[in-house]
């Protein structure tokens, strides 16, 4: 187990040495987002903005206009919906080289309840022109994604969850990943599971369970939701004829929405199902109980796959 948030903090420290123009901003949550690691190492390049997210985003744009590479962090709920207009004008429209890195995405935030469980952020960011949208799945991949955010130009949004998560990949495996290219985690012929972020790990377990029951599922880790790897989606649809998406996000407008658009526009006669939060707010509770109640764990993936392909 490892916490992707720690991977974010550690990678910032590492990149801070290599890139003297990398700066970090936070809105009074540096202990939770782990930007505090960078703050301790490079206090002069860390800007505590207080509980003032709008100001943080526009300030980051000003820093970027002077050649800095700003990473701005807070919880996903405050990093997107609360500051939509600032992101829209100062980052997306202006093509500012600002990286928003949000933690505490999805319902597995747990007991804080729906006010803090961000399930619309991917949709909100995906609809913005010029914006790259990322949802890394484990600590190793998070480190690599943060590095790619720093080295690729343009406004970007990445979100991870709050909780510790199993390590899925070793370092060498993620070294070759590229923004905008999905990862084929496992090959299979009966159905394709396309997952992102916190749903990749339960999808791996679900695949094993399905295999025991004679169903060979292909598994894709779609860490980049925008630009979407449409070529890969089309290839999977043609190969397996059945696609199921899984994300800790609303079924509207996120990974599932993006893939539905691709499938429909390419007239692919494919069985299709979106797993996610079904257009509702959730509630306080233990993360594992919430994921069970709202249908986002290994058991639910297995059930949905079998329903979808009729086996």
């Amino acid at each position, binding site marked *: 187990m490892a916490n992707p948030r720690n991977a974010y903090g550690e990678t910032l420290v590492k990149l801070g040495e290599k890139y003297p123009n990398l700066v970090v901003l936070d809105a009074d949550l540096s202990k939770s987002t782990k930007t505090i690691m960078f703050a301790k190492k490079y206090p002069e390049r860390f800007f505590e903005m207080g509980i003032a997210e709008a100001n943080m985003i526009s300030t980051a744009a000003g820093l970027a*206009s*002077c050649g800095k590479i700003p990473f701005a962090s807070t919880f996903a709920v405050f990093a997107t919906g609360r500051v939509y207009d600032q992101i829209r004008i100062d980052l997306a429209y202006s093509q500012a080289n600002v990286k928003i890195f949000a933690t505490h995405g999805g319902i597995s935030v747990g007991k804080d309840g729906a006010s803090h469980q961000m399930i619309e952020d991917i949709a909100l960011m995906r609809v913005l022109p010029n914006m790259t949208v990322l949802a890394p799945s484990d600590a190793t991949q998070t480190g690599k994604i943060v590095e790619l955010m720093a080295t690729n130009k343009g406004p970007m949004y990445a979100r991870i969850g709050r909780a510790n998560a199993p390590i899925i990949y070793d370092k060498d495996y993620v070294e070759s990943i590229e923004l905008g290219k999905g990862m084929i985690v496992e090959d299979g012929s009966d159905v394709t599971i396309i997952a992102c972020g916190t749903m990749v790990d339960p999808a791996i377990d679900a695949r094993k369970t399905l295999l025991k029951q004679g169903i060979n599922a292909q598994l894709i880790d779609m860490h980049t939701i925008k630009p979407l790897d449409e070529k890969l989606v089309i290839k999977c649809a043609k190969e397996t004829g059945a696609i199921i998406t899984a994300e800790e996000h609303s079924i509207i407008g996120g990974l599932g929405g993006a893939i539905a658009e691709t499938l429909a526009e390419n007239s692919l006669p494919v069985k299709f199902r979106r797993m996610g939060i079904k257009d509702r707010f959730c509630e306080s509770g233990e993360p594992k109980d919430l994921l069970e109640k709202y249908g986002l764990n290994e058991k639910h993936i297995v059930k949905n796959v079998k329903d979808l392909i009729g086996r």
Partner: protein
Amino acid sequence: MEHYDRKIIDRLDLMAVTIRKHVIEMLYRAKSGHPGGSLSAVDMIVALYFAHMNHNSKNPNDPDRDRFILSKGHAVPALYAVLAESGYFSVDELKNLREINSMLQGHPVCSYVPGIEASTGSLGHGLSFANGVALAGKLDENEYNVYVMMGDGETNEGQVWEAAAAASHYKLDNLTAFIDRNFLQIDGNTEEVMRLESARDRWSSFGWHVTEIDGHNMKQILDALNETDNHKRHPSLIILNTVKGKGVSFMENNVDFHGVPPNEMEYNMAMEELNSLQKKLEG
């Protein structure tokens, strides 16, 4: 108080009339836009670009340049005209304001137009953006100054006060903000829409160094800029007491010209007034 060569003041006053003529011409041609707030902002923008700031139209991305951010983006016709007259792009381009396929959008976009520092139009962002530029200047130990102009109505926005607190917290003494204090916003007098007074006390209590001047008096403008540039430890605010629609008699203090361009008759009247003022200053 500095003693300026009378010629400098005269030259700036004359340029301000030229810019006002451009503004009227542009808005009349575009058949849309914001005359009132563009005309009230003209004099400070002219003073900055033609007498005060370190900038070079041939090298708009010079890292050492002083920066001006127009937070009240709807006044951009005044800035476009100043940039054109400064050589950032051709004066002829001004006739394309708000036209399709033009780089001169209704509100400024930094990635389209040389010399435009920030994309604005949605009010309340510019001071935060300027803070970022000022922080970068401090970090790089670069001596450039950062200037940002807000509308008075714009300071209704909550983000302005987030930024006001941050600029003071970070002691951004390389930053000077202006409020174009014309007392009018779309729904009427600023004090009736959402009271701003005492603006001076509010900003002072946020830790700002505040001065207040006649925003149409070039000598006062230059004096204030020289004073705030040298002020240490606090960000500076210059409250520009201005007249909305300044320079065109029937637009002055008339909120109906906030976002409505002149019709043909009004255009002719406005140009006549400005032409005769120009002649007087030239004479």
